[in-house]
């Protein structure tokens, strides 16, 4: 009965359905293919816990501990800034703002999501770095703190929209029950709505971390790029992502340096994999999400 064209396209539909699995596997396979060579010559332990990243000295050192700590420091700073602020904004937008103000604010945050990271990096160098330099009397404003502020800003659309969704999907009856008992709107928000939206907030935090730790261009431009173990927010650091972006251009294909950069990719891939599974877990743990029309 089926026409041949329909038959073919149905097969294509099935095939495309599985494509995502194939791509995830392919990404991992190709990272391993290029990156594993390093572990056989340099050792996993020396790689992860080595304190020195001197890829082009002789003999080269491929310890990524300073890079891991750089990434973690910048990420921690960004999350400390962005989660509380994003939470506040999400509450305001979902619960407090009149609908016309809400539209304006949401548009503003959507616009932020549309700005390419390279542009934020560029703006950060020109505006944020000099301000930090003069406030803290530094020789350069390109520091971990600058990276954290910039990344907090970039993670904001993700964080705000997920928390907002979580707040909106708290059943209306919870809110009405609380208000009927004589609680004020604000009491209802922080005693009833926020606890009910708790796992959504955790999911937002996870996705925020995922977004921030994987960011490349803005951090490359604004964190100052010194591959040393960081001790303060006011010194330049270098992240895992920035290292790949900065050095791949000069690494010879197939060399140890080349596979070390792919090995960093493996670390990033595994990390983002875990973070995303966690976020997914928190997203589906909350009160059953109502179907949006």
């Amino acid at each position, binding site marked *: 009965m089926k026409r041949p064209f329909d038959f073919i396209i149905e097969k294509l539909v099935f095939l495309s*359905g599985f494509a995502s*699995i194939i791509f*995830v596997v392919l990404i991992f396979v190709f990272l391993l293919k290029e990156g594993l060579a390093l572990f056989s010559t340099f050792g996993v332990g020396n790689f992860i816990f080595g304190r020195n990243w001197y890829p082009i000295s002789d003999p080269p050192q491929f310890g990524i501990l300073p890079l891991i700590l750089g990434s973690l420091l910048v990420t921690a700073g960004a999350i400390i800034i962005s989660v509380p602020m994003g939470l506040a904004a999400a509450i305001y937008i979902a619960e407090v703002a009149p609908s016309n103000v809400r539209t304006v604010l949401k548009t503003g945050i959507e616009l932020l999501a549309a700005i390419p990271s390279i542009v934020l990096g560029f703006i950060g160098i020109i505006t944020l770095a000099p301000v930090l330099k003069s406030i803290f009397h530094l020789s350069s404003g390109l520091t971990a703190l600058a990276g954290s502020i910039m990344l907090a*800003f970039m993670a904001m659309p993700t964080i705000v929209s997920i928390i907002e969704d979580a707040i909106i999907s708290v059943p209306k009856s919870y809110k009405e029950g609380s208000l009927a008992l004589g609680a004020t709107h604000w009491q209802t928000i922080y005693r009833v709505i926020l606890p009910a939206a708790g796992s959504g907030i955790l999911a937002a935090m996870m996705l925020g971390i995922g977004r921030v730790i994987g960011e*490349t261009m803005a951090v490359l431009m604004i964190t100052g790029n010194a591959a040393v173990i960081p001790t303060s927010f006011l010194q330049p650091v270098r992240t895992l992502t920035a290292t790949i972006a900065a050095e791949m251009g000069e690494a010879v294909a197939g060399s140890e340096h080349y596979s070390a950069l792919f090995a960093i990719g493996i670390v*990033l891939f595994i990390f983002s994999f875990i973070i995303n599974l966690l976020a997914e877990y928190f997203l589906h743990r909350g009160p059953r999400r109502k179907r949006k029309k």
Partner: protein
Amino acid sequence: MDEKLKQKIAFNILLIITILIVAPVVLIFLLVLVRGLPGLSWEFLTAIPRDGMRAGGIFPAIVGTIYLTLGTAVFSIPLGILAAIYLNEYARRNALTRIIELAIINLAGVPSIVYGLFGLGLFVTFLGFGASILAGSLTLSIMTLPVIITATREALNAVPQSFREVSFSLGATRWQTVRHVVLPNAIPGILTGTILGLSRAAGETAPILFTVAAFYLPRLPQSVYDQAMVLPYHIYVLSTQVPNVSVKIQYGTVLVLIGMVFIMNILAAWLRARFRRRKVW
């Protein structure tokens, strides 16, 4: 009354924080507009860079970005829409479907620079495409795929179940139902999501660093196997790699990129608004 006052204070603090987030966005746009506009001229948009990129125009980078975005569209749109049709219209709720969904979530979370490494390993080196528009487009396509799949699924989901039931009851096959009933009603939503996904791809830098971007190439790409200059990477070059580039050229380039991304976003928003009004169910 005390509680009322607390509420008032709390709401005002929330408002101030929200403004702290939104105000910089407005300031950034104003800054780019005010400093970028003087740099825009017919020559800037249509000439090749001269004088070590300190003069002339950015024509090759504009063209490169357009080619790359179109290339991404060619691969990611059909694949993304078909995958979403599979998940929404064909797949049963079983473990395999769950694994596909988790794979999509993970694709969405893979850092952009890791896509760059993957593109370098698979397309540039293993398949031998070299640093080229083809390799860059394929890399960006896979990165954009989750956005398109998610948006398409939402659009398909919004088509009422009863539409499908009527079609089945008339004896239509599943594919006929998808093709003639579900897809036509979901097209606006699919377009909106797809354009947004492509606008993100157009502004990406990290995935194209090693797969297509050329530092300086004073001519237009001739084939899909050519390298190309692209706007995001050009901004990176102008702001960190080449000393003494005039502010006019830097901001002008940023303005052109933001303008392109912005036009795509406005188009998406316009489509969404236009079709939402028409929906009657």
